[in-house]
């Protein structure tokens, strides 16, 4: 219930604010905010190309013509089993219970969890497989929705990594290094490309917990950390909590009008200090408060999904109405993408199935299948799929042999870094193909291997960045997301 008086009052406040900041939103200090909250192109001050460059990120001219503007990364934490989802290996069912041949294992190091086993009994998928779409891509029965978008996605079956344990493997995927300390992918992009929206962070993170394995693998905030880049490139977690962004909400007893007044008072007082000390940091502080105020409205707007029509909820599945689920986060990811957030990272926990795999993987797949497919189709129907790169996958795969005892109904699979499957869609990636092959045991790659650094190089390539040129000098060394290796996987580009 907005009375006319309140409206006038609000307009007055907003005019004051504008008069105060001048016609441009780019006070000198604003530059510092560029990468977290850049101004929209229309707001750029043509007289200050240096500042504009800043807001665009450090890369002035993209190295290549970009195919994608943004990334939505649906990270499946814990290491989903390729055998129960994507890799149809009838031989494993045929040889069920027999020993993994040593010439196939070929000296591969194992984790400490199964290296002590006397026996490595092969085990195939208890779930059926079929071919889908014109492409004839194979999916298991656990992915009824993903299989419907077979012709939209590119399934890479020949991913491989260097790490065999979760912490180093997931850190490797997100930062290019197994040991903590490097910037995460989203931070690199924030640093390199800057922002596309003045009211929202450039790099957002959404977490959800799977139903497959209750006691699974943790996450670490370093996975969206800025490493040695400035902290303004940190990923900002959006949460299904009272405060979608930490400390976003006005405390109880304070409303937006009084907040507005307080910010104006702070600004006038800071302005006096600026005149006295001449320190541009003070004008940065003034802008900081303006941006914070804007975020207080723009973030709840994004989180408020009530205005989404019913058919959209239907598309993403019933879970999408429950905040904090993977499905709800997938829907939120689309909304963030629409508003120009550059890198949206989802983490879905619970894929680490060392035991009780048949049941766990089924539940886990159910958590994500429908919403992942819906996201791709939703982006497509809005014309956004072509410049949005969607990625689905975990940090490594799982072994073709059973960890622990293999029984009629139950088995587990240990970590397997030598081959695993992920999929990608949109953003200039060739749709409707399978890329790479593994041997009939599903143990070794026999065609077109894709290393984690190749994957990262390809991501950057799609955004118009040459991964070898995109470096940050820290302690005397030029660091890259891809460290010292990586080749763009040309075979998956459309």
């Amino acid at each position, binding site marked *: 219930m907005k009375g006319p008086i309140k409206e006038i009052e609000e307009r007055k406040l907003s005019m004051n604010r504008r008069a105060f900041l001048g016609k441009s939103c780019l006070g000198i200090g604003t530059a*510092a*905010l560029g990468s977290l909250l850049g101004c929209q192109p229309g707001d750029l001050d043509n007289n200050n190309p240096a500042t504009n460059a800043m807001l665009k990120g450090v890369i002035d001219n993209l190295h290549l013509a970009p195919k994608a503007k943004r990334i939505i990364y649906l990270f499946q934490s814990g290491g989903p089993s390729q055998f129960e989802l994507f890799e149809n290996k009838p031989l494993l069912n045929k040889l069920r219970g027999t020993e993994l041949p040593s010439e196939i294992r070929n000296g591969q190091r194992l984790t400490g969890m199964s290296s002590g086993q006397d026996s490595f009994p092969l085990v195939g998928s208890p779930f059926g497989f079929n071919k889908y779409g014109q492409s004839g891509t194979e999916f298991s029965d656990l992915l009824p929705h993903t299989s419907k978008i077979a012709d939209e996605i590119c399934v890479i079956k020949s991913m491989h990594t260097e790490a065999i344990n979760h912490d180093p493997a997931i850190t490797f995927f997100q930062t290019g290094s197994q040991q903590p300390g490097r910037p995460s992918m989203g931070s690199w992009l924030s640093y390199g490309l800057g922002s596309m929206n003045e009211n929202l962070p450039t790099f957002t993170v959404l977490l959800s917990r799977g139903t497959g394995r209750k006691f699974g693998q943790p996450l*670490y905030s370093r996975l969206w950390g800025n490493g040695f880049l400035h902290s*303004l490139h940190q990923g900002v977690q959006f949460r299904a909590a009272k405060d979608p962004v930490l400390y976003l909400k006005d405390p109880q007893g304070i409303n937006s009008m009084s907040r507005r007044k307080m910010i104006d008072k702070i600004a006038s007082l800071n302005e006096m200090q600026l005149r006295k000390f001449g320190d541009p940091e003070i004008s940065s502080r003034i802008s900081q408060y303006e941006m914070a105020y804007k975020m207080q409205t723009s973030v709840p707007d994004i989180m408020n999904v009530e205005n989404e029509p019913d058919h959209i909820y239907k598309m993403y599945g019933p879970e999408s109405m429950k905040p904090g689920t993977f499905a709800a986060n997938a829907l939120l990811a689309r909304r963030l993408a629409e508003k120009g957030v550059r890198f949206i990272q989802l983490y879905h926990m619970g894929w680490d199935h060392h035991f009780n795999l048949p049941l766990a993987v089924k539940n886990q797949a159910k958590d994500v299948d429908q919403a992942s497919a819906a996201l791709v189709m939703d982006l497509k129907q809005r014309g956004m799929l072509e410049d949005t790169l969607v990625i689905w996958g975990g940090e490594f795969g799982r072994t073709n042999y059973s960890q622990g005892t293999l029984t009629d109904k139950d088995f587990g699979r240990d970590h397997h870094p030598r081959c695993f499957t992920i999929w990608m869609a949109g953003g200039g990636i060739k749709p409707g193909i399978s890329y790479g092959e593994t041997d009939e045991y599903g143990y070794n790659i026999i065609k077109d291997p894709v290393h984690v650094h190749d994957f990262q190089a390809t991501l950057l390539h799609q955004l118009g960045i040459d991964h070898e040129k995109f470096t940050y000098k820290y302690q005397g060394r030029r660091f890259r997301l891809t460290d010292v290796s990586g080749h763009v996987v040309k075979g998956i580009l459309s």
Partner: protein
Amino acid sequence: MVEIVRSYMVKYVAIFLLALILIGACVNDKSLIDQDCIISSQFASIPEAIDFNFHVRPILSDKCFKCHGPDKSKVESGLSFATEEEAFKALQSDLSKHAIVPGDTLNSMLVKRIKSTDGSFMMPPPGSYLALSDYEKKVLIKWIDQGAQWKKHWSFIPLNEVVDVPEVEGEVSNEIDNFILSKLEEQSLEFSNPASKNYLIRRISFDLTGLPPSIKDIEHYVNSSSPSSIEDLVDKYLSSISYAENMTSQWLDVARYADTHGYQDDLERIMWPWRDWVIHAFNSNMRYDDFVSLQLSGDLLPNATKEQIIATAFNRNHKITQEGGVIPEEYRVEYVADRTLTFGKAFLGLSMECARCHDHKYDPVSQEDYFSLFAFFNNVPEKGLISEYGGIPEPYIKLTKKEIDEQLTFINNLDTLEEIPLMIMKDQNKVRKTYILNRGEYDKPTREVFAKPPSSLNSFAAYKPNRKGLSDWLFDRSNPLTSRVIVNRLWQICFGNGIVATADDFGNQGALPTHPELLDFLAVKFMDDGWDIKKMLKFIIMSKTYQQTSRTTPEFIEWDPENRFFARAPRLRLSAEKIIDHMLATSELLVETVGGPSVKPFQPEGLWQETTGGGGGSTAKYVKDKGDKQYRRSLYTFWKRTVPPPGMLTFDAVTRDFCMVKREVTSTPLQALIMMNNPRMIEASRNLAYIAFESKDDLESQIVYMFYKATSRLPNEEERNILTKFFKEEKERFTINDEDAKALIDIGDLKQRDMASDAITDADVAALTMVANAIFNLDESITRS
């Protein structure tokens, strides 16, 4: 901040660069991306006399070393510019030719190559993504033309023990001023005016104690007519326990201290007794050489005491994994590598880790040097994996309650535990062999090496090949780095930036000292004075240089945006810890208990639970402490490495994954949200309002009092009016909406106070709380000027 500097840099590049060139440095701070140097040098004039260290080596290092540097495995065409001998020798491809012929640019192949535009001949080659600017080419050519004089890298040259203190015309307080002022006078400039006394007191208070000065202190010293009043104040602060806590807070970054193990489930560890020892050491002004030697090798002293052994926990602060399934040796190697990295960065100012995989590309540290240093830390009887969930990694000692009560009284055994386990350093009897690991990988040993520090530094011949020998070598007077590195960091405490801006990199790729003679003068003095930290800090603070005002003009900022000339005092935003401590101290909520187990003040709910695997370990859920523990100084805040306190990270705290010796300062809207909306801030604002009501009778005095406490100065009339108006507006709102008033003052655990006078309503308290919060949110409140 740095971002701003960048935009300035581009805009005012000509002036700035000119200035820098005069002092001979192209700023090589990591904050400035390469491009800036390239752009900027287009505007620069070429120096009259080319100096190898200040002009030439940075170019060689940055643009040529990748293929022609110290990494022997990557040397192209047999040509290296790593040493004088190699750079001047005949070319492998044609023994009649040389890359550099001193004084003869026509016959120097280097000149031909860098001038060429032929892709197959030019240097650097197009595929390297490196390019020389015109300025850089001209410098290299002029250097050869002037005779190509070679020098060892500046920081590896032994300290100049007899630095001439330059004569200056202006007034000075001590020798620091001579060095700083002489550079200014060369440009017909002088010091800025002295800071007004209350700003100066605030500055000293935050720099030394990490806390704001009390009003009592301000008034006492402002009104004092004694010529030694500032000196007395410095002495007072240096002798306070707050000083020790403040120094410790910064040492925790260096020591990568945390209360958890840091990988995967990230369970709790107990290392705080070591932190209490650090407080004790700073408090008793332990000599820096002893302070470091004990931490490196206290266990190897003859009949080492428990205290000396506790100090060595420093080298067990690294992360340790308990992730089932890892290969223990792979991780054990990581721990040793972490200690090696920490040693290099913290004490030598060198980034050693590049040399783990190959010879260092920029610094004279070979892979053999790296693993020889690694060998000192490779002899611990430890395991790579914590095999028992929640177990304590070997080696550790147990501190009994009796020992703590009787001898180790610096440990605050608040919870009166009977026994406290603490990880410490120890050497096993049978020396573990160390090998060069190919590409640094644990399973690729090649040649055996023996404990020895890098050979390009002072001789190790007289010392034992163990950690004790290493610390003795570190504090050998002929070590060119140790003293320079630490005085630079003490300077950084007082000026935000060191004399070498890259406090973590004194190598070829690091920044050059802006005042090399001053750095040597301080380094020598520090040793002569017995490595006395308090004395050095006092010496710096008593200089005119330190005591200048931070007021400046846009022209001045254009001239020297980064304040590399130290011609004014910097305005520095307070660190994450100082901001919280300031809120607590100013509102008189601060509980001054020293040491003890880490505490868990408010943080938003669910942060640990959201990311935990769900195994229910010791750090699965954050349970906020009650009572006093919420109001302790922030160095005592529990540090979970994989989910550090979010508000502190937003204010640029580091994650404690690795040793860090300098923090960045950034500015983001998330900081404003924390300042305005964090319940801890609201609670502190409310308490400040209570105090104001209790101390002063009328509104104006109450506002003035709060402002004074938070900013250390009295507000002027305009400022008073703005805040008074805000109070009235808010009071009107709260009077109409009494529930809002009640809701606001209900935030936090702090009990609501009955105001002495019935005339003070909830609306009054709420409105004054808002004013207090606004004051805390001022830029001035979280800055020391």
